[in-house]
């Protein structure tokens, strides 16, 4: 392999201004942030292979806050126990809120059926504009509109049940967005701006558990 001496990103930035230069599209594509849990997964894999010494404290940037976080979790658990209620119903449980950028699923239910024709195109454009603004702020990971027809799989060997009559107004999942947010509160704030709510729909916010 021919030696390559420099990191491509360290080259003269002016060279990128030319639209045919290397990196010409770099500023025109969405950003992608690695899942926070990946770092610990890699470190654990390396430690298991003996390539890194076992780390007692894990990520030092996190360990500083671990005591406070444990106390906060205990306090939350106590409050739930004493109150006997599911505190914060209707919003993501605070105890699941990460303290670094995490991913959340915004699940779109209900709302008026898609009108068809120009009205539907306008509504699609409205959602797209919202997604574009979100992507511009670095929060959008992906999003899709789901068709109403579906195939439902149940017990292995029992075959598949076509369920093509559902529609979003029947409570069928009509679409989803995956977003990144620094907290459950931020994810909720983003979800509240979703135009789907203006069309009578429901948006369910669920934290994605790193695996």
């Amino acid at each position: 392999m021919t030696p390559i001496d420099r990191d491509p990103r360290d080259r003269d930035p002016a060279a990128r201004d030319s639209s045919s230069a290397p990196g010409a599209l770099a500023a025109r594509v969405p950003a992608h942030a690695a899942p926070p849990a990946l770092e610990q997964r890699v470190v654990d894999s390396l430690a298991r292979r003996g390539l890194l010494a076992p780390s007692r404290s894990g990520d030092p940037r996190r360990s500083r806050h671990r005591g406070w976080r444990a106390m906060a979790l205990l306090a939350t658990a106590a409050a739930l126990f004493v109150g006997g209620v599911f505190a914060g119903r209707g919003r993501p449980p605070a105890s699941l809120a990460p303290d670094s950028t995490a991913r959340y699923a915004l699940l779109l239910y209900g709302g008026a059926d898609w009108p068809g024709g120009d009205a539907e195109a306008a509504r699609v454009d409205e959602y797209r504009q919202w997604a574009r603004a979100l992507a511009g702020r670095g929060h959008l990971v992906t999003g899709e509109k789901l068709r109403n027809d579906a195939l439902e799989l149940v017990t292995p060997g029992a075959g598949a049940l076509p369920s093509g009559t559902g529609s979003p107004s029947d409570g069928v999942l009509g679409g989803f967005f995956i977003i990144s947010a620094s907290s459950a509160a931020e994810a909720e704030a983003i979800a509240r701006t979703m135009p789907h709510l203006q069309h009578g729909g429901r948006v369910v916010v669920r934290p994605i558990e790193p695996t």
Partner: protein
Amino acid sequence: MTAATSRSTKSAAQLEGEPPDRALADRVTSRRDPASFRALYARHTPALYAMAMRLTGEPADAEDAVHDAWIRAVEALPRFEWRSSLRTWLTGILLNRLRELERHHRPELPLDDTVLPTDAPPDLPHDVDPLDLEAAIAALPPGYRRVLVLHDIEGFTHEDIAALLDIEPGTSKSQLSRARAHLRRSLSTDEREVL
């Protein structure tokens, strides 16, 4: 926040005052020091993951590829001769892993070595939605997509790409030209409705 500003890749100037890659790598190989590894990880993973995402289009695949690339890199680190930057070396390892994963999913078309003119810029409409652009890139055939991502997004030259992919620079140029033509056609006729 634009893609460019959100990238946490640091330039050489920004790295002033931080241990250079080689010093951190030495501590990883000689002392198996987790803190030094985490520093390297934090420095290089944002760019590696972003590239893997653009080449696979799947967060789970990108995550697995970056994970595996780091394992291979640390295993091979004692043998790394520092004739290239660590970033470029890591990129090569990641590309190898991604190609292995791709072969499991679908057979790769042979690269077309016909050299085409490459002076033409990407020449895409200025109002292309970033999501549409990314989707169009993801839909490119793997060989085209790889060269376009490495050149037009990651900023590698054709000589770099030739070294990374073990191909001729002329092949890289022709693949880029074809990739851009694909992209222009796709974006000019793309009627997909992305929510």
